């Protein structure tokens, strides 16, 4: 086959996919703001995303904070700037690692389960059945997940930030022999509102992306069990990539304003 034709076909397919995601995003988002609202579904999703993700996110945040303290100490000790360890831990956690780690973990946990659940509903005609029962699946299935993802991830990240800083504190005080009070003082001295706030904005965007990818891939899955498997993989992979891309974009955005 003509290689140019092949290239053109791939490009067109890629653009068509972007268009489909964009249309899905607009439709799904608009349903988040128009009644009727399925409160019970929203609450169930919130519980699933916010509460049941706590152990996973807490564990990863704890060890991330701990290793941060250890690694930055190794670096800073080389030019006797050990006192910066606490600051580095708290800034990295709130601005960067809290949202990203929580986002990636939730993408694996929640994004996958959304894609699998909605995908199974698609291939077993349950989504068609919703249509025939005069219920819009966008409103019934997708909107509650988007709302829950966008609102719950910032709360998770607040918890992740605190646990991560605590992890750094444990290593700092019990292993690196910092004075406990000094470590805490250094933690909060240079922390600004913007550091935490930018992290929470990121978290909210990541939550939206995770739910969006889970729902989009599930909603458009086909081909039985294999199709659902593919949808699940695609949901997690695309959400993870988007998280890292948006992480840079949002950082850049806040960086301009300092």
């Amino acid at each position, binding site marked *: 086959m003509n290689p140019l034709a092949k290239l053109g076909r791939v490009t067109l397919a890629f653009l068509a996919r972007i268009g489909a995601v964009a249309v899905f995003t607009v439709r799904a988002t608009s349903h988040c703001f128009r009644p009727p609202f399925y409160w019970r579904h929203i609450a169930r999703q919130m519980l699933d995303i916010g509460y049941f993700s706590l152990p996973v996110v807490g564990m990863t945040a704890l060890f991330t904070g701990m290793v941060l303290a250890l690694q930055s100490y190794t670096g800073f000790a080389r030019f006797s700037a050990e006192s910066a360890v606490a600051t580095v831990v708290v800034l990295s956690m709130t601005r960067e690692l809290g949202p990203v780690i929580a986002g990636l973990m939730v993408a694996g946990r929640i994004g996958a389960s959304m894609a699998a659940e909605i995908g199974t509903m698609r291939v077993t005609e349950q989504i068609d059945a919703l249509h025939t*029962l005069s219920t819009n699946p966008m409103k019934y299935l997708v909107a509650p997940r988007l709302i829950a993802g966008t609102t719950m991830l910032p709360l998770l990240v607040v918890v992740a930030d605190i646990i991560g800083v605590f992890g750094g504190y444990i290593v700092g005080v019990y292993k690196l022999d910092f004075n406990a009070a000094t470590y805490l003082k250094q933690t909060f001295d240079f922390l600004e509102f913007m550091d935490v706030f930018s992290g929470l904005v990121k978290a909210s965007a990541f939550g939206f992306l995770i739910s969006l990818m889970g729902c989009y891939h599930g909603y458009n899955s086909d081909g039985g069990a294999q199709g659902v498997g593919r949808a699940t993989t695609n949901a997690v992979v695309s959400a993870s990539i988007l998280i890292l891309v948006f992480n840079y974009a949002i950082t850049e955005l806040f960086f301009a304003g300092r």
Partner: protein
Amino acid sequence: MAVPKISIRGLKKRFGSKVVLDGLDLDIGAAESVVVIGGSGTGKSVLLKCILGLLDPEEGSIKIDGQEVVGLSTREREAVNTKFGMLFQSAALFDSLKVWENVAFGLVSAQKKSKAEARTIAIEKLAQVGLPPQTGELFPSELSGGMKKRVGLARAIATQPEIIFFDEPTTGLDPIMSDVINDLIVDCVKRAGATALSITHDMASCRKIANRVAMLYQGKIIWDGPVAEIDRSDNAFVDQFIHGRAEGPIRMQIPV
């Protein structure tokens, strides 16, 4: 003849380069039970999905009670869909909901009935399809295939729709259970005074539930007549299909 309940003219639908429906015409009168027969992959399900608005046809018109439904907005579509009930091939029960919640779903979502009221009606409908009230407390995953079909039927008739669709109602059931389901379908449709459109390739089921039979072949209705005349249709395609012969004008197209 009065305005037909469903009137389809020149319906065309294709997927990529594969033409599935190619200018299909079909009228279904009020309180009539029409069965569309045809081989696997001839587009029977696509026809139902077009009428329900799950798929958008490329061309043609579908009128329900004289109202054009092709190209309706989502909201208008939802209003039209309250006239429909559908029994899906795999029953398509919501597996996160209990059986009674499945049956009551349309009552709550479309008819805005209270939960208690919807529950009473759901239990009633379950009884109508021969299921005891305790079944209502089970989840769909705990049911056998025949029971799922019954629950699906109860859900389809719960809102007292004017038009009921049956997508291969007996596929995957043993002959006796098939006949039980057929009886239930005939009974429910008659009792509700509803218009029924079924698709099947099970001739026993077709003879039992149809008033009129239409045969779909290569995207068109090639024969259409009362069920009593199906054996003297003088149509080689219909003859081959109803007797299930491998030899005849219909060549099984094996997709490559």
